[in-house]
């Protein structure tokens, strides 16, 4: 009887000891993974900061103005081009009667077949 309980306790000690160590190593592993993740996040964040700074640098108004002058020649909006309120927008001219639309000949060849997906579009552009 004594022997049986001794064996039981010994087994229990061994199991808990083993489990404790197992948990400890698992925690250590998780901690390493966590530290690694933190480091990766920090590196990523620092990369993002660099990219943000770069983005701001590339978007300097002076640089954009130079690019605009070179490629687009857009000018600031003149006062006369601005419409202050919706009330100032002229009404659309009267729509043609629906019978005229129905009578118009259908022209299936009018629009060239467009690409159905981005992949096709890229293939089309690349083919040109």
């Amino acid at each position, binding site marked *: 009887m004594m022997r049986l309980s001794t064996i039981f306790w010994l087994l229990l000690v061994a199991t808990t000891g083993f489990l404790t160590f197992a948990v400890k190593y698992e925690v250590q592993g998780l*901690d*390493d993974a*966590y*530290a690694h993740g*933190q*480091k990766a996040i*920090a590196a990523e*964040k*620092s990369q993002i*900061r*660099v990219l*943000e*700074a*770069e*983005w*701001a*640098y590339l*978007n*300097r*108004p*002076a640089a954009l103005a130079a690019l605009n002058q070179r490629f687009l020649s857009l000018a*600031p*909006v*003149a*006062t006369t081009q*601005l419409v*202050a*309120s919706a009330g100032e927008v002229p009404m659309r001219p009267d729509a043609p009667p629906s019978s005229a639309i129905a009578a118009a000949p259908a022209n299936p060849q009018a629009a060239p077949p467009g690409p159905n997906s981005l992949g096709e579009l890229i293939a089309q552009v690349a083919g040109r």
Partner: protein
Amino acid sequence: MVALSRFDENPCAPRHFKPPPCAPVIRDREAQEALETGRTRLLVAGALFVLLFAVIALRLFDVMVLSGGLDTTLKGRSGAPPLLRASITDRHGKLLATSLASPSLYADPKQITDPAAAARALVSVLPELSPAAVYAKLSSKKSFVWIERHLTPRQEYDVNSLGIPGLQFQHEERRVYPYGNLFSHVVGFTGIDNKGFAGVERGLDGVLAGRSEPLQLSLDVRLQYILHHELQRVVDDFTAKSAAGLIMNVNTGEILAMVSLPDFDPNRPDAPEPGNSQIPLKERLFNRATLGDYEIGSVFKVFTIAMALDSGAATMTSRFDATSPIRIGRFTISDYHGKRRPLSVPEIIAYSSNIGAAKIGLAAGGDRLRDYLGRFGLLRPPTLELSEVGRPHFPRGPWHPVSVMTIAFGHGISETLLNIADGASALVNGGILRQPTLLKLPRGYAPEGRRVISEETSLKMRKLLRLVVERGTGKMAQAPGYVVGGKTGTAERVERGAYARHSLRSSFLGVFPMQNPKYLILTMIDEPHGTKASYGYATAGWTAAPATRRIVERIAPLLGVAPVDANSPAIADKLQISSLIGHPIAPY
């Protein structure tokens, strides 16, 4: 026999039975006590263990169940990443200043076996270094020398691929200003150890060093660029020495743009400006919008007239005789383009009559003028999130009539542009003076202000400022559709203690849209020279006023100010001076 009767109470036991000797009968009192003590000790020890296990169990329960399995006080073994100085952004989140980790190269000369070869190799990848200096550093007896601070990642890679032992990198924090010169004075810059040296970087150094999320300013990159661009254009067109300007929200006190020219690149504040190397560094680092105090000239008349109207010293129909110049002692106060007749208050401001303004000042009296200027915040240094703020200069003692007269038209008192802009905001926004700020305020929030003039006086000031642009000296600031109002100011600069006739300081205070003022633009151009296009004029009406018109036309669409017809009855009604209906003043 007694023992037997105790151990063998069975009367049917065999006769030869003897009680076993294993259980001694303890009867001694002493032994009994020892047993009790042992039991008590066991109990105490047991209780102690139960307590300890209970503590552990409770803690386990706390860690695993109550805190959801997360213990926030524990950190990974890597420790927290170092806290970088907070970024600075504009009101729309555009990055004005940020900190990047940048590698700095140092060497341990004791580990370097061949300093000459190492120096040669280093200079081959870092050509900006001098070979002699590098050699001197590498052959020194120290164990730590900086070779070069703040390299690019590319340079770090190049140095690493040289494979020289004894060269090491330390990752440091470096401040980067993507917009370069655009925000030089207002954002400022930091030193090599990331301590704020100027601008917001210095004024809010503690805030920036202690937080990680970006600090949002009230500035707007687009407005800043437009102001910078137009001021630079005026400086170039009129070969001026310097210029400064700011754009402010009159209803909240937020500063949307602030420019001072000449400027510098905060990424390399001490580097000479390409093409501008003759301008001394001190001149370029100087913030003319907040630190410099200037005799602003006629712009100041708006305060005199607001004072007179609010205190009752004058009304819109009062007339002051401007027939002949005023002579007091060795001073003569005259008008630039004198009308040589009595002028009404609207005429005085529209034609910018010095004589008229001086007489208004005199009529109101020095005490009253001083009291009102104090209310407008013009007799104390401005408060702003910058440490570079100048203080106004004016006669300290009692103001003599001469001082009162000159101060009434903006001479004999010098002010920072910030003070003028803030005081003028109060004149047009309904009479509330607010503290100017560089920090973005929540949308729709206007800080508590202090009433300095009545709402009625403020309405009159709007009409008068509109008149100046409609028919007076500020006609060139007329931006069709945006109902600009304003006041010109042309002061003669003081040189060697005397006013220099042909060395001018031209400024313009512009506000729009006048029927419901929202934004104020104050510009100042130092020493502009007349050109053919301006018929030789370098006065405010020809320099600062047209610049203001261009600025308004460019920024109004960005600020969501819709163009309106200034002659429409709804607007004309708000801005028409009743005494002038039917008898408009002659155009300037």
